[in-house]
């Protein structure tokens, strides 16, 4: 870092409009209303228009997959930064949701419109139940145990040769057409994004953040830590199962690769790059990372190397992420001052 010739430092000041918008006076003028609404509207409009403007069906599919990863990333971000449970087991949720949807579709013959909600709710409950004994764990211990769950399930399926074994379950119905599939996932994603943003600012969100920062204080207030943790895990795992169920219906196939590390690692990478704790950041990160990884597909495994190095660079040099940076630029201005 270079120090300017005179003794100077950078000062950041909130924009006046931001200060006004923090209170209820935001409703007083069009200018302030649009200042608040514009970023959100850009996001919603962008998400809805993007599938129409991408050049080919292939890229449309890539966009759908990005949205699915974004769901997982939001679930990770919510659990890690608002509840304090760092789950490296995104693949666990995807796998459970995917296999449930696949079984409901092939064995019971339900249509995708029934299997997806079914897999979401039942899968969320199942994941919560399985993770319940681990909830008292914190920090690196929870991270390790959640990383092991998907690996364990994959090995069990492989070893016992159940649920189609290594071949997986084939012949799963797809959505009725690709526009339905696309917009269904986009709408769900936007609903969940804004829903979670609202949730973390409600009373329950306050309790959850309390669990993250000081669980002893929460317990001293007579609130059950385990109950709130399991509610949070249910919400997060339901999001993961939803994405797994959608994925199964898109690929029309369900197999052990649903438990692959990709589903644990890419969402986390996207969260780190997009800005952790912002909930929009992970979405942004997925929209950047997944297409990049498609572009690099020709390079084979080198793309994973590339990916990993970007991730390390971001963790070390820009740990705040793009979204936090963007928000700062939007809400504040900077100037040099002498001292």
């Amino acid at each position, binding site marked *: 870092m270079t120090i300017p010739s005179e003794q100077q430092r950078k000062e950041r000041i909130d924009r006046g409009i931001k200060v006004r918008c923090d209170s209820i006076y935001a409703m007083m003028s069009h200018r302030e209303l649009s200042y608040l609404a514009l970023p959100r509207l850009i996001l919603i409009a962008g998400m809805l228009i993007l599938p129409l403007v991408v050049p080919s069906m292939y890229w449309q599919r890539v966009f759908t997959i990005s949205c699915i990863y974004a769901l997982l990333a939001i679930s990770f971000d919510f659990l890690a930064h608002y509840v304090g449970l760092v789950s490296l087991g995104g693949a666990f949720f995807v796998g459970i949701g995917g296999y449930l949807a696949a079984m409901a579709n092939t064995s019971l013959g339900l249509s995708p419109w029934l299997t997806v909600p079914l897999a979401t709710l039942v899968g969320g409950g199942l994941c919560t139940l399985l993770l319940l004994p681990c909830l008292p*764990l914190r920090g690196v211990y929870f991270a390790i145990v959640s990383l092991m769950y998907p690996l364990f399930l994959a090995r069990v399926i492989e070893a016992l040769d159940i649920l189609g074994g290594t071949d997986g379950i084939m012949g799963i119905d797809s959505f009725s057409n690709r526009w339905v599939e696309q917009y269904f996932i986009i709408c769900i994603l936007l609903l969940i994004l804004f829903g979670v943003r609202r949730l973390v600012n409600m009373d329950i969100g306050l309790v959850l953040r309390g669990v993250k920062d000081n669980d002893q204080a929460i317990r001293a207030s007579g609130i059950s830590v385990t109950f709130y943790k399991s509610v949070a895990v249910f919400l997060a795992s339901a999001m993961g199962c939803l994405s797994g169920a959608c994925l199964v219906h898109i690929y029309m196939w369900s197999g052990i690769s649903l438990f692959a590390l990709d589903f644990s690692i890419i969402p986390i990478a996207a969260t780190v790059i997009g800005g952790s704790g912002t909930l929009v950041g992970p979405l942004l990160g997925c929209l950047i990372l997944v297409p990049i990884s498609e572009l690099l597909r020709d390079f084979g495994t080198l793309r994973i*190397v590339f990916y990993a190095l970007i991730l390390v660079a971001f963790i*070390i040099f820009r740990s705040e992420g793009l979204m936090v940076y963007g928000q700062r630029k939007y809400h504040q201005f900077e100037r040099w001052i002498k001292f």
Partner: protein
Amino acid sequence: MEILVYGTINSVMLALYALGFAMVYGVSRLPNFAHGALYVLSGFITWSFLNSLGLNYLLSIVLAILATGIIGALIYQFVLIRVRGMEISEIMASYAIGLAILEGLRYGGFKGMTYTLPAFISGSTEIAGVPVDYQRVLVVVIGIAVVALLWLFTRYTRIGLALRGMAQDERAAMMLGIDSDLMAVTAMGFGSMLAALAAILVLPLGNIVVESGYNILILAIAVCVVGGLGSWMGAVLAAFLIGFAQILTVVYLGSHFQMVVALLAIILTLIIKPSGLFGRQKELEERV
């Protein structure tokens, strides 16, 4: 008898995998997710020294162990030290580095062909009526020697005592003039060297494959978690526990279940007693 002999061999191998991981975690509280990658990397370094540069086998082994140690120390000095104390960033960064090393090796042409290291002494012998090749005997002998040397090292040398001090109480160690960052780098260097040593002992038994990096990482974590993260002697005992459990399941259930045992051990230990079998002092800290 077969179970006893092969269980012992498997256990010593597990202990070798885990010691480096346990050392790094014990000293700097860093779950080194690049451990498996360093293991595979050292195998490839040895192979390159041996076949591309045409060095003597013993020399290339020594050089490979040193090189892996230096690489580990450099990774810590330039990358991981910046995220020290932020557990999730540590896991992510070290895992990403491991991923980059492994997939880089895969891209760099180490695929398709089989890469093997020659055994130190070929041939086999019989122990109590069970045929065992010399390399496996050597693994056990050297493995036990390494554990013994490590024990002596951490009790009778200045660096070893400093490392142990760091592991027990970092602040107190710093007050006594131990450079915490330097010791963390040293521990990472030694941990990587232990991974390299394990690789060089075990890899002549099979092929060098990139995928084994992930398995080694899981096995190392399993042993360390069951033994109690940060407890070195616990890790050795846990290695025997898991080693025999694995051999028993392979004999009675089939080889598919070998990894299932390790994963189940991790999950059950963390659920029932997260501080592991032998890690006592941190029990309250990790649970609500």
